[in-house]
């Protein structure tokens, strides 16, 4: 599994623009086109959903 925790350090003095995106767990071309940020967001969502499903199965 690829490790997406490593990142380049943020540029100093640059205003961070926050934009809300809907991130489907199956991903989308839009997220891929977004680049690094989109890939990280997708994988995060995907892993969250997988974990939830796993926990649910364990509960059942």
């Amino acid at each position: 599994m690829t490790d997406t925790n490593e990142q380049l350090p943020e540029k100093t003095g640059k205003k961070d623009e926050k934009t809300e995106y809907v991130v489907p767990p199956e991903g989308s071309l839009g997220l891929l086109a977004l680049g690094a940020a989109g890939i990280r967001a997708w994988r995060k969502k995907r892993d969250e959903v997988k974990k939830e499903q796993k926990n649910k199965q364990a509960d059942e």
Partner: protein
Amino acid sequence: MSKRLAKKVLVIGWDAADWKVINPLLDAGLMPALERLINRGAMGNLATLDPPLSPILWTSIATGKTADKHGILNFVEPNGTGDIQPVSVTSRKVKAIWNILTQEGFKTHLVGWWPSHPAEPINGICVSNNYQRATSKYEEPWPLSPGTIHPKELEPVFAGLRVHPAELTSAHILPFVPRANEVDQKEDKSLHTIASLIANCTNIQAAATEILEKQDWDFMGVYFDTIDHFCHGFMQYHPPRLEGVPEKYYELYKDVVSNAYRFQDMMLERLVQLAGEEATIILLSDHGFHSDHLRPKRLPNEPASPALEHSPFGILCMAGEHIVSDERIYGATLLDITPTILTLFGLPVGRDMDGKPLLQALKEPVQPELIESWEKIPGSCGMHPPDLQQDPWAAQEAMQQLIELGYVEPLEGNKELRLKKTKEETDFYLALVLIKANRIKEAVPILKRLYHDNPHIVRYGLRLANCYKLQNRIPEMRKTVDSLRDKDQKHLPQLDLLEGTLLLLENKPRKALECFRIAEGSVSHLPHLHLQLGNVYNKIKRWQDAERSFEKAISLDENNASAYHGLGLSLLRQNRYEDAAEHLLSSIGLMHFYPEAHYHLGEALYHLQRYEQASQAFQLAATMNPGFKKAHQWLIRIYEDHLLQPEKANYSHMFIKDKIKGTIYIVSGLPRSGTSLMMQMLKAGGLEILTDELRVKDDNNPKGYLEYEKVKKLAQDNSWVGEAEGRTIKVIAQLLQFLPDRYNYKIIFMERDMNEVLRSQQKMLGKDTSAFPLGLAEAFQKQLERAKGWIAAQPNMEVMYVNYRDLIENAEEQVENISSFINHELNTGDMIKTVDRSLYRNK
């Protein structure tokens, strides 16, 4: 240093992107990011180079130099251990733009450029073209091959960003292939290919956006091979449906190429957003990709054959604060990109660069500074030492992709043979580079050697023949074409096209027509064929047939300046002056430097009584071609007879008087090769002959020799040659070199079987005709070859070769050819009557 115009420059490469595919998508609003870029900037075609092979081209883009200078000449290269490997950046001999910028202290990043492995130690981040491709199965370790990232400590960041094709879901695939569930994946690996290409593209985008978001930068270059690879795999299914493509696959994959472009557009939006408003964006491709009837029906079995799917114009789009807005860029080539970037940064352009800055794209006038060469400016520029060796495993993985794409043959069999073939192909590509740079003289020895060593490799012979054509070495071109014909088992249409062109140059238009008609059976989709057909028809004055052929050429290639010119000429000769002018204007609109087109436009305008415009057209023709006597003659007529400005005609009068001498018609060849017969025919046809008739007719020549005594001493004294101006004179082959070069000459060179020539000579001299004088034959043959080679090298000589036997047996056709060559109204009936078959002796 000049003024720095651009704060930042982002160069985005879309390999194989083509306006022909993009335009309908723009019209449908399906590429909004590109549309915004075009609207705020400038766009145009970007002319590619030859051979149109991507690693060569992207290096020319990055250096501003042709491949013979930069050293990247193939997809592969020797690996130093007796085998081959993908071409590496260490084979580049000169600085790329990122090296120059590194040296000058600019923050410079590079992602995925081809070739860029191993990553160079530039003043920024370099992600090599070994980065994006998955080399192991999903969920297995996927290490970066050594040398993929500079600086090395950032490897974990970029390694973690990569997406594996197997990681993708139906959400990624279905937009490309909506009916993906109908694909039988056991038989059809297309979905796997699409997933790989999406993943590769995503990885480049991920690396580029990571850098743009997090790093300071002045310059970034990002290269995507996505469109090219999608096109090689799926352009066969792109609408309109090609003959032979099964409907099932057409319906499944017809939108794949369009969707690849749309995906790239989405990525473009993100890159432009991250680059910021102060960045200058340059979006380009190295060549186009045929998407219509010009898609090849099949690819030959030869190295790099997929390049036959490439078309000669890529795209260029530039936008930024100092770039003009909503304008068209004309005449740009790949070689102009680096000089333009240097100018944007206020840096000088090397005189050794083959391109020039695209000043037309800049808002303010700029005078770029020039230096001799950036290679002579010392400094740490981030290039590798030339002996750096590539990691063999990384090389093997990258090699696999080249094999899968069809650019390289599978690595089977003998290593030594593979290496030899690679060297030969590299030399062949070097020859192509030299031809494109108009250095034909340097290309010829390379092609001669290659063809000599590999006579079965037709493309070597075809290119060699074409070189001879460009050098006007018609006899050598004939020899090469004949040898290709001897070996042609498959009856190649290219050979018919080439031979047709040769026959046209040999002034045998009817035979040329036969060849083109045969070629038409296989390559009727090629505009060049119809162009040549039109030229033949114009030559033999079949104007309506010419008109049809040129119209066909234009329907296949609407940007063909020669076709518009040919069409205009055929209409001119049918006295359809308005139509002629319209098409001739189209021709010069496409290619301004075209003296013949300006000349014929002048003629059309003259007949439309638009004398002022006609004079302008003739002036341009004469300026572009200073020896254009007829243009000057028209100008004299217009100024004196119509515009009543005789003083303006003075220059043309003076020019003709001082610079242009008349034409002298020469009949030449070996003695007894039919020269006297030709002289008799031309006299019968109405040409004035220069003869003193000192040599009287005899049994060997009952109708007379028609010679001029002074010719015998031509080697010692040629001052009298002016007496022959406008007339015809006989000069044997060995004496042609002594003709003074201040005249123009049209030479009819008689050829006859050497046996017949010598028998006739022996008989004339009263010698025994049964013994064949071998030594004399060889000497004459050498003299002939020397004479022909010399003639071909003279710019003031035109030559037509006439075979004696052809003349006797097929006088009608030959007389027509001669009349066309002489370009005079000749009495062809009397010329034909002159031929007396009973005098064809010594056969």
